[in-house]
């Protein structure tokens, strides 16, 4: 099957490879996966700038609640009175910050970028299975981003019911102004986003299954592809459930149904709604919401596995266990959603079941962490910026993952549920970790994306070290705020004298946040500057084994100017010695690209 489609795509290439593309077909409505991946990345970065900037605004508010900031007047307009933030816009900021970071940056920006870039290039395909669907997928994502950004300018303010948009708060404009037009736009934007995500995911799945080059068996796939493939499957399984939840919420909001509403007295009148349950919405939301965090983290894991192996000059340790743990995590991720709802009023017995499945997921996660650490052991570690971010990923994933053991335990969750302990936990384990994965991917595959240009490594080092220190500086002390019992999504805690002694920690976290956010400007400068002025590196700068580096630096339609390379080995033949153990298999070269046939003096592995 794969051979057949490969021949077809050769013909396709010969027919169409030479005609001149217009600006519009090349840069805007492009069907080329490489261009689409760049579009995803740059849109994702743009959304990331908005999302992170919002966090700066509310961190300032949290640290100095009684201080007047001119910056609030500038950016919040009528929601800032003489530099004092309005409480409802605080909720809007945290809501949109969460939405943008989870969906627009870490789902589309991460998975969209690297699935598009790497799936065809690493499996040896001319392009995605359907370039057209791929283009539609990006433009729907773009449209949903535009709608989400537009919702910020709505009269009554953007959605402000938290990124989890629990009804009735999100259903009733009487309850909070943001639940009017802002919430409508939020739902429309997310519905389009889900359509975009589904088209992308289906395309990734089909491409990985059908378009692998000759010799590229599933067990020879780089772990990146495994991660993207499984991520796409989880997306297809869980995103439609969010769509149905969103549709039901739209019905409740606009057409008077009662899926999630019952017995409500608000603004002096009783609503007619009867018989619905907000708990149903929580189930539906988290049926996506929890797999979503793995949709975010799995691609980062794949990227990190690849970068760690390449830069340690060693095979990834326990390839099969890594694949198995990706599959186990993916399976378990769909049956643990209830741990977000231990105290939602659902039957406590369900809480027991979800505690059990949740703590099970720690096992494959632990296996992955140990395997990454062992990959470093006795390596010859090349400290490229991508490698530094990958090591830091393992570090934050461990730190954040360990507190997950506490939160996953229903008995312990009672007292820290919805406190800053949770905020600290998920920012480390999925926020910061996934961002590190994204950044590692950008530094590593930048030369592939931008035709051989490389990012400046020294700026990369500055970016990394300040970010690494700053991220821990923000989120480690935050655990203490949670253990002190301070609920999240509080505009200020000055109404509780009991929490007065938290002011110091809040100031410390905000200072770290300002520094960390500021240093991202270095990254943005490096990124955009290198697109145009970056030094042209060698074709395979990191001396990597995977197929994308066998393609020409100059992008061509169809990826390889000549024939598609065939694959003869797995993607982790780093530092493999010949049978006599006198030298590497290829003398003087510590890696064997996947398209090199087995040598005579080489022991055959099971891959």
């Amino acid at each position, binding site marked *: 099957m794969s051979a057949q489609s490969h021949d077809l795509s050769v013909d396709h290439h010969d027919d169409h490879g030479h005609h001149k593309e217009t600006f519009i077909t090349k840069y805007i409505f492009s069907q080329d996966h490489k261009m689409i991946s760049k579009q995803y990345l740059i849109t994702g970065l743009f959304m990331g700038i908005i999302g992170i900037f919002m966090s700066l605004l509310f961190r300032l508010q949290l640290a100095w609640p009684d201080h007047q900031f001119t910056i609030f007047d500038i950016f919040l307009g009528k929601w800032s009175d003489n530099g004092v933030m309005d409480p409802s816009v605080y909720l809007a900021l945290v809501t949109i910050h969460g939405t943008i970071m989870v969906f627009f940056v870490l789902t589309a920006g991460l998975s969209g970028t690297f699935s598009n870039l790497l799936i065809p290039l690493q499996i040896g395909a001319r392009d995605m299975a359907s370039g057209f669907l791929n283009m539609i997928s990006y433009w729907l994502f773009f449209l949903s981003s535009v709608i989400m950004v537009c919702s910020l300018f709505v009269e009554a303010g953007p959605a402000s019911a938290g990124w989890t948009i629990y009804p009735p708060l999100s259903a009733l404009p009487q309850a909070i102004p943001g639940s009017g037009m802002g919430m409508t736009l939020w739902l429309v934007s997310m519905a389009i986003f889900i359509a975009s995500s589904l088209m992308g995911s289906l395309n990734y799945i089909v491409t990985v299954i059908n378009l692998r080059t000759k010799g590229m068996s599933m067990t020879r796939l780089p772990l990146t592809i495994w991660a993207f493939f499984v991520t796409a499957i989880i997306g297809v399984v869980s995103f439609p459930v969010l769509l149905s939840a969103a549709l039901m919420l739209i019905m409740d909001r606009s057409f008077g149904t009662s899926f999630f509403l019952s017995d409500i007295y608000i603004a002096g009148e009783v609503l007619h709604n009867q018989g619905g349950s907000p708990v149903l919405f929580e189930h539906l939301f988290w049926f996506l919401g929890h797999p979503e965090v793995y949709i975010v983290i799995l691609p980062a894991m794949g990227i990190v596995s690849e970068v760690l192996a390449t830069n340690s000059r060693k095979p990834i340790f326990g390839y099969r266990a890594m694949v198995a743990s990706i599959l186990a995590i993916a399976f378990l991720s769909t049956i643990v959603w209830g741990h977000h709802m231990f105290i939602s009023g659902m039957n406590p017995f369900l809480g027991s079941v979800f505690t059990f499945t949740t703590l099970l997921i720690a096992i494959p996660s632990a296996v992955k962490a140990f395997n990454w650490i062992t990959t470093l052991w006795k390596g010859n570690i090349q400290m490229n910026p991508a490698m530094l971010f990958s090591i830091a990923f393992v570090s934050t994933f461990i730190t954040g993952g360990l507190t997950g053991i506490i939160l996953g*335990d229903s008995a312990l969750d009672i*007292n820290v549920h919805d406190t800053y302990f949770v905020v600290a936990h998920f920012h480390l384990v999925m926020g910061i970790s996934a961002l590190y994965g994204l950044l590692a991917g950008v530094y590593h595959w930048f030369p592939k994306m931008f035709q051989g240009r490389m990012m400046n490594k020294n700026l990369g080092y500055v970016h990394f070290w300040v970010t690494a220190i700053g991220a*821990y500086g923000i989120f480690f002390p935050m655990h203490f705020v949670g*253990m002190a*019992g301070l609920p999240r*999504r509080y505009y200020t805690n000055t109404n509780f*004298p009991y929490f007065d002694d938290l002011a110091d920690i809040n100031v410390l976290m905000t200072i770290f946040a300002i520094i960390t956010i500021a240093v991202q400007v270095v990254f943005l400068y490096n990124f955009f500057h290198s697109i145009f002025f970056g030094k*042209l590196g*060698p074709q395979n700068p990191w001396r990597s084994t995977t197929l994308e580096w066998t393609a020409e630096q100059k992008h061509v339609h169809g990826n390889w100017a000549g024939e598609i390379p065939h694959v003869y080995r797995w993607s982790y033949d780093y530092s493999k010695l010949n049978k006599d153990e006198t030298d590497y298999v290829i003398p003087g070269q510590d890696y064997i690209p996947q398209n090199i046939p087995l040598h005579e003096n080489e022991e055959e592995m099971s891959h």
Partner: protein
Amino acid sequence: MTAFLVVLVIILFGVTIWQMSRIFQMSKVKTVGSTSEIASDKDNNINGYLMLGFVIFMYLLAIFSFWEYSDVLLPKSASEHGVEIDNLWLISMVIIFLVGILTQWLLHYFAFKYKGVEGKRAMFFADNDRLEFIWTIIPVIVLAGLIIYGLFTWTDIMNVNDEDDPMIVELYAYQFDWRARYSGSDNVLGEANVRLIEGVNQLGVDASDPNAQDDIVVDELHLPVGRKIIFKMRSQDVLHSAYMPFFRAQMNCVPGMITQFSFTPTVTTEEMRQDEDMIDKVRNINRLRREKSQELAAKGEEALESYEFDYLLLCNKICGASHFNMQMKIVVESQEDYEKWLASKPALKETFAAMNEEI
């Protein structure tokens, strides 16, 4: 509108820069195959040492946080089941700290120890079934222990039953305040529904229900020490969460259904105020408030009141603009004090009577 214009200007500015840089780009000579942006031995060395420095930074940050911030943590549990939760918490914390310290050390130390040197050979080490078995089975055993302990604790806490003659109290949440309804001498709450809300009958209690007549609605929660309480929670409008951190208790209040949580308070407010750690904490808070008051006084504003410890009920589920100020005071006191306090509050039948008179 101005916001849109600003965005437009920014975009146009970006396009200008992009076009300018293209002109620069075209006028530039290309160098191919430069390896200057790939890590050299020097980079490996510096960053290797920095990795070692980083793990030490992490340890120091942890030590600093414990040293500096351990006094902000919640005091000892003021409820019976809370002691169990605190034990489990301590055990889990010790385990995750040990694992964290060890794995972070290995990760960063390996990064330092095996930093790249030109010409050095890495070890081709792809698989080891025994190693992988070991680090699969160890988490399995440790987690099994935690799960079992956790589930027993959870089941004990959530098993709300009538043993030990519990007192039934309703917690009623609405934007943005709390009410409590005591079930009175019959210990049965009268039926209630939001459709019955009218005037002073703020909780929508059914006036025709005989069980409702002796119910007592209050805006401050008083609990007799040592008596098991079953809280029945209702919400009037949106989701709220009744969070009582000092009692290690929390349950969402869901419109359209009644949720419940049960605990036995064991430490009176007065005893907690006399707790040594609490005395230190309150002294520290009052010092901060005095400093703040001086600042405020300099600006000609009102000074802050001095603080005295009280148990709290907080809202812990985003519920609207004033979510951050939805609280109720909880007082734990002796049975006699509690009864005296409750007797001073009017029963609902008086409220109903007043309503009828108005009509």
